[in-house]
């Protein structure tokens, strides 16, 4: 089996895996990085949303071979030690999470959006596809705006 070397949350890892193994299972089942969640496996629910070189990706449909030599960031890598990312802080301030299962993906999607657009419009926030089955959308929107104001 080929070996792939890449960075996960600043740590260099090498995994032996078939080229087409989805990154989600490399992270969760091989590396024990369980922040990204499975919700559909086909790029629909976005619960697994993470970053590849700073851009949002959905590791359930990204093959491990695609990330070789690159930098993967999951929800676990967002904070700087104990210091939370402003988006995480905004999430706490708005008390967004209910069951919390979608929230790693929501936060990673929001961070990626804010990287592209410092002050996202409502239409840009509307374009976020991440499902929240608990229905926290209103607080997510408020938290994104709050984070934007902070950053």
């Amino acid at each position: 089996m080929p070996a792939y070397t890449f960075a996960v949350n600043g740590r260099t890892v090498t995994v032996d895996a078939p080229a087409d193994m989805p990154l989600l299972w490399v992270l969760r089942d091989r590396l024990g990085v369980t922040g990204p969640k499975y919700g559909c496996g086909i790029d629909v629910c976005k619960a697994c949303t993470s970053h590849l070189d700073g851009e949002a990706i959905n590791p359930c449909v990204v093959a491990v071979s695609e990330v070789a030599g690159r930098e993967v960031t999951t929800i676990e890598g967002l904070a700087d030690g104990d210091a939370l990312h402003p988006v995480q802080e905004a999430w706490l301030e708005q008390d967004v999470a209910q069951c919390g299962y979608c929230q790693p993906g929501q936060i990673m999607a929001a961070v990626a959006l804010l990287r592209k657009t410092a002050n996202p419009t409502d239409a840009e926030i509307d374009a976020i596809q991440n499902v929240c089955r608990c229905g926290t959308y209103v607080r997510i929107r408020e938290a994104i705006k709050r984070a934007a104001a902070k950053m």
Partner: protein
Amino acid sequence: MGDPTASSTELTGGAVGRRRFLTFLVAAPTLTLATTDLAPDSAAAASVDVAAGLPGLPQPADIMDLGDVLILAGTPTAHLLVLEVTEDGEAHFELPRAEVGQGITTAVAMLVAEELDLPLAKVRVRLADARPELLMNQLTGGSNTIRSVYGPVRRAAAAARARLVAAAGARWDLAPGLLATRDGAVVAPDGRTASYGSLTSLAATLPLPGLTAKPKPESEHTLVGTPTSRVDARAMVTGAMRYTLDLDVAGAMPTMVRRPPTINGTVRSVDNEAEVRAMPGVIDLAVVPTGVAVMAETFGQAQDAKDALDVTWNGGTVDSLSDAGIRKRLRAAALPFAVPPLLTRYVDAEFDFAFVSHAPLETNCAIADVREDRAEIWAGLKSPIVARQTIAAAIGLPEGRVTVHVRQSGGSFGRRLFFDGALEAAQISKAMARPVKLMWSRIDDMRHGRARPATHHKIRATYALGRVLTYEHRVAAVETDLRHGLGEILTATAAGLPVAGNLSFAQTVFLTTVKVPYDFGVVTELLNEVPLKMHTASWRSVYSANTRGAEEILVDELAKKMGRDPVAFRRAFLKTDRQRRVLDKVAAEGDWGRAMPAGFAQGVGFHDEYQSCTACLVEIDARDPGEPRVVRAVIAADVGRPINPRGLEAQLLGGLTDAISTTLRAGLHIDRGLPLEGSYSQFHYARQKDSPSDVRIFIMPAGGEPGGAGELGVPAAVGAIANAYARATGIRPRSFPINFDVDFTPFPR
């Protein structure tokens, strides 16, 4: 923990008058308490008083609702709560309920912190394992947790506090009456302090005959009732929260199941086992009652392998059934009206509601480690005692050899009342003789998971001279599976139930959850079920989302016929001032009646259940009736006594989003024995673009005991949205979800 050794603390109860309590001190090095409430809870009696004051005849749910039934059934063991004060000054509380996102661990931590005068950060609430000695008191449902634990938790914490105070008194040789508690410490009049941590072992061993303690009067609450953020929020935003599948149980490897092409189909033969066993990463394969289980190194490989299986299937239980046939059977099952529309004026309407998946974002999953002589299970479970019994029987172990851990889970909405994932994991673990980490695919979760049953509704109201004379509602529903311990609870409380005749469990649940909040003369609401062998379960608000939702639509139509404005009409017919205040709040805050552009409209709905009531006002943009969007919502709720208003608002927000989804677009089509929908691209639960950006929620001030709130938000919002849609488009919605085309290519079976 050892056997309880009796000490004779006598406690005085809260607002409901003097009661006797015993406190048992559990043999432990630190203060660990289980309290006993000797008096039956007064909830049922209290509700009768309320009902007696209502104009018109009370319905069964006015007298005793399902929540009261659950409290009554749980009362004999309500005292078996475990609260420990540790040497580092923390309070650890074991909650015999499930946390599925409703924020119950936060609310309970607040109760403990309040009563102990301890900072919230020093309270840890963990979910108790299945505890069979709790009998009927470990079921999370019926919006009942706060209602059922509000008294017992406070009494347990008050008893702990009294013991800590007594211990400090003994140490300082001061009368306990002179001492106060603050910030996790006992304080003497001269300013000396002793932390709880330093007192706990003394408090555990001190003989304290005749110690009395009572919970604080509610007027002294400083934390309870104030908006508080979730105690688990940080774990959630950092990815540190461990859900079932995030646990590292030694040897438990990823496992998935290949399921039949129709509901309840079974395996006849596996035709390429050797090939699949040779696939990359595959570890094991086993045929179980529900399909073919495949274990692999990773879930991706397990999924590939199960998809590659070539299986010959036996038929299922509803193979020839599709939506049209189900609808026909439901229509035929709706019982006839009693009142013929003679001589009076009347409004008739019929409604249909599709099946709806619970679709929690965390799919059905469990970890099971079944050995020859013992088993251990981890899963999100709302009825863990019944789960344990059933699993033990299925794998042939005595119940005492099965440990069931309740894990915090990624949503439920009623889904996790059932433990089919845990049962299946145990069966696979037994068959493979290894620990198993079982995950259902999203497709399977939607197609073979549980759903809210489809329903059909016939409603007739007659009126004359500005009064509603009769109101009849006939509900026909595909059978809701209630086999998660509710039957036992209803049997145990049967003598006290306010229903007569030979009713089924379902009819009893229906009558103890559904009631008309309006003074509509002679009211009859009847349920008739169609038994179909499908996987169903109560879905947030059980029968009320559809039944009360349909009624709120009918109310608008009735108001129109009688020439009244929808808000004014409701005001006139609601039974209590408390209900009217909630309605008035949304009408005022939502600027009811303001002018709207063409294609936009307001709609209003009201709902009352479990001693709480709520009103919802929405504004809809339905310029394109095929793509309506709720753009604004105002909600008011009176839940008697809010524990955590911020958490309560979250629940109402969730109810609103559920209503938006199920009223406008989200449902399941049944086609030849299987739902067509297999993911969120097909089951259209709301996304950010479907959610209003302007939502305001008003929680009415505390004024009584806590009512139920977890499901409260759905029915009023269903009515409000449908009514707004009707006013905006002129189309009277009769079938839900309103826009329900098969706008996708179904996944292969």
